[in-house]
């Protein structure tokens, strides 16, 4: 009855065994994988104990996704073995992996929005024998049984598409269980969850553990790893950088392990300026979203706005950007009272908005870096006959992409989706800087950006502030806001509940304010 308490004592590349010398539940040994000329994995070992809560942490591109795909049988490793309960597999197929009990929950959950919760949970029932009568009662019973095991209660007859994401995540976990999972692999599970919802998820994961089901989180979010996992395996550049009990780590140490950089824990000195505010918000309200919001940001100041999901921050940001008309209150840009009917008007007044969702809202992925850079300023680049002046376009791109933001690429004429997350974010910044903004609203700018690249992004942000831009930094990561802003506002349930000076506040105090 292995319950994971026989924790291995090791750091580094050793193959762990339990103190008793039993083989671990799942072991990956010496996995190497190449794609064309790129080596994704090199001699990676991973071991997972039965019923343990394990995290696989590392920056984007470190190989964790590839490793998972090898475990699930989607990719065949060039070298190495996957050993499931002592039995070695050289060519594991997806079917074999699933039959053993490896169930992967992707970040998009892969549920069917047009089917009920019960049908989603028991969907495998349909796949196994298609030409059979779908027995609704049997499926409902199975779904109910799974829910009982996990001690959750989900509305069985609701269509999944109508449910909030936290509920959908639970549906996905139930589905994995219904498929007789013995290891549930979750990809960035807390990315869209509020703190309360994370607690809910944590409870379920512990219940999984009690059911003798192991969980593996793939993550690069330090909070998630520290809160949830028992052991964490760190990956860097395709190699296993060690497996550690989480109890022996703190966030800073974990971050250092993942990136290899020492964390900067400096805080910005207080900001003072005689200049008139670039952005003033007075008593702004939008029914059902936020009420009575008032603040101001001066040129050169970085104002941090934090709060959990659902606190109204994004809705507020979109109101400032003209995409979500408020019901009452006033917005002033450079002293002038404005009322935006669409985001073009906002841009013209000097407001730029870097969206949280870079992949589908921030950039047009299949199109070139060049086109993505100038898309917001096309009308400013026209010359005779209303056509785009090629020289000025090239100049804009040269200036912002290569000179100012130093995007790592040989040419701007390749699709932007070929760039890394950090470089993509630089293109986004280039696009908005080209509009000559006075106010830059950054909404979770480092989501999906490696911890190492984050520092680079914030260097750029600091430089922009130094040049006189007023910056509103929205983030739900308390530490990010603490170290990167001059002032912090906390939002909760649509209201601003506190203002904090980073020099006089600790991370914990901030977190308490956010999640109170």
């Amino acid at each position, binding site marked *: 009855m292995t319950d994971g308490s026989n924790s291995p004592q090791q750091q580094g590349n050793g193959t762990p065994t339990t103190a008793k010398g039993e083989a671990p539940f799942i072991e990956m040994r010496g996995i190497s994988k190449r794609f064309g000329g790129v080596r994704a994995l090199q001699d990676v070992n991973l071991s997972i104990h039965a019923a343990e809560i394990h995290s696989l942490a590392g920056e984007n591109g470190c190989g964790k996704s590839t490793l998972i795909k090898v475990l699930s049988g989607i990719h065949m490793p060039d070298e190495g073995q996957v050993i499931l309960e002592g039995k070695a597999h050289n060519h594991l197929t997806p079917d074999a992996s699933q039959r053993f009990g490896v169930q992967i929950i992707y970040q998009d959950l892969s549920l069917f929005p047009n089917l009920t919760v019960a049908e989603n949970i028991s969907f495998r029932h349909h796949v196994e024998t298609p030409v059979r009568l779908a027995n609704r009662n049997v499926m409902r019973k199975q779904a109910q049984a799974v829910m009982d095991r996990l001690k959750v209660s989900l509305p069985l007859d609701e269509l999944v598409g109508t449910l909030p994401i936290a509920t959908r995540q639970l549906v996905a976990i139930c589905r994995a269980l219904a498929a007789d999972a013995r290891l549930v692999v979750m990809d960035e599970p807390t990315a869209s969850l509020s703190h309360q919802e994370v607690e809910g998820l944590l409870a379920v994961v512990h219940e999984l553990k009690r059911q003798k089901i192991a969980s593996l989180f793939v993550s690069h979010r330090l909070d998630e790893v520290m809160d949830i996992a028992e052991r964490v395996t760190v990956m860097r550049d395709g190699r296993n950088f060690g497996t550690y009990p989480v109890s022996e780590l703190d966030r800073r140490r974990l971050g250092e392990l993942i990136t290899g950089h020492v964390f900067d824990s400096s805080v910005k000195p207080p900001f003072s300026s005689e200049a008139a505010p670039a952005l003033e918000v007075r008593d702004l309200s939008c029914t059902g979203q936020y009420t009575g919001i008032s603040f101001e940001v001066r040129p050169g100041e970085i104002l941090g706005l934090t709060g959990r999901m659902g606190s109204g921050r994004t809705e507020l940001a979109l109101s400032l950007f003209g995409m979500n008309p408020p019901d009452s209150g006033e917005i002033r840009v450079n002293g002038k009272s404005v009322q935006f009917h669409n985001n073009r008007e906002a841009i013209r007044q000097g407001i730029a908005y870097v969206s949280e969702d870079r992949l589908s809202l921030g*950039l047009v*992925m*299949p199109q070139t870096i060049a086109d993505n850079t100038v898309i*917001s300023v096309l009308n400013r680049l026209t010359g005779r006959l209303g056509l785009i002046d090629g020289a000025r376009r090239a100049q804009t791109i040269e200036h912002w992409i290569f000179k100012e933001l130093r995007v790592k690429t040989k040419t701007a004429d390749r699709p932007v989706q070929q760039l890394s997350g950090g470089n993509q974010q630089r293109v986004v910044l280039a696009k908005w800087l080209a509009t000559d903004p006075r106010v830059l609203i950054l909404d979770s700018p480092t989501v999906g950006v490696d911890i190492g690249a984050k520092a680079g992004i914030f260097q750029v942000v600091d430089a922009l502030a130094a040049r006189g831009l007023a910056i509103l930094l929205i983030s739900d990561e308390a530490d990010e806001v603490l170290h990167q802003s001059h002032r912090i506002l906390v939002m909760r349930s649509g209201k601003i509940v506190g203002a904090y000076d980073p020099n006089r506040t600790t991370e914990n105090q901030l977190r308490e304010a956010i999640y109170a």
Partner: protein
Amino acid sequence: MSPEVATTAPAPAKRSSFSELLARDPTVTLLGAFIVLAVIGFGALAPERFLSGETLRAMAFQMPELGILALAMMIPLMSGGLNLAIIATANLSALVMAAILTRMIGPESPAHVMAGAIALALGTGLVTALVVGLITGVIVAFLGVHPILVTLGTMTAIKGIAVYATSGGVIGGFPPAILFLGNGTLLGFPVPMMIFILCAILIAVIMNHAPFGVSVRMIGSNEKATRYSGVATEWMLVGVYILSSLLCWVAAVVMMARFNSARAGYAESYLLITILAAVLGGIDPNGGFGKVLGLFLSLILLQMISTGFNLLGFSPHLTQAIWGATMILAIGISLVRDKWIARLWLKST
């Protein structure tokens, strides 16, 4: 399941000249190669008739109406949509113009009456087309209905109006000024071809160098992200369908001039061919990518094949069947081509 890599982004060059051309722009190079093959092939099979000046002239007069309609199909395709109503729009527009012309003038009408009537007819035809485009664009852009459904609806409705108003009959007999647009030559060059080339150049310039064109391509790849970047995507989409319908009007003028008549059911077989020409010409049916040059070359190729088949005595039904099969082939080719380009990119980086 769209190709992930830009089909227009030039792939890195290689050594020999043909491979180099192939790598830089596979679509254009392949089409060029096929055109040469077609000339050789048909030339061999029917030398005197295919390689004659008369045949060339016939092709030069036949191609423009299809070409302009293909341009009308290309623009919605680039925006990520489709306009299935182009033929119906062209026919309705032509019928409106034909009705005015035949009612207002006869062979003995004085010149100024003729000029006035022609102007009125052309103007009304244009307005008709624009109204159709506006309605289509508004429903697609502001109501968010899928372009296939909208244009199927408008196509049915427009054809219905046309059939109802004419009881399925023909309206014909236009003044020489109109006929000239479809059958005349200027300095030896066929007028309809000039109109087509003018349109093609205009569209190419717009799609590549005008803010509208660039925005449309971005919208085709990701409408929401383009909107978040401050582009008035709804209005752009309305513009797409208005522009498409405008081209239908131009095609209508050329068609009625060539046939000296207008009818509700004309040129229906063209619909598939315009989509075929677009796909063959490198325009991605998922939106965002494509060049006018590619479309132009594929049209030449298709026209050659069509004429060649005709000369060889193929039944028009057989030709239609071949178009259907060619479309399938074209999709297969573009799939292979895109995978190949993706591999080239992978190797160069």
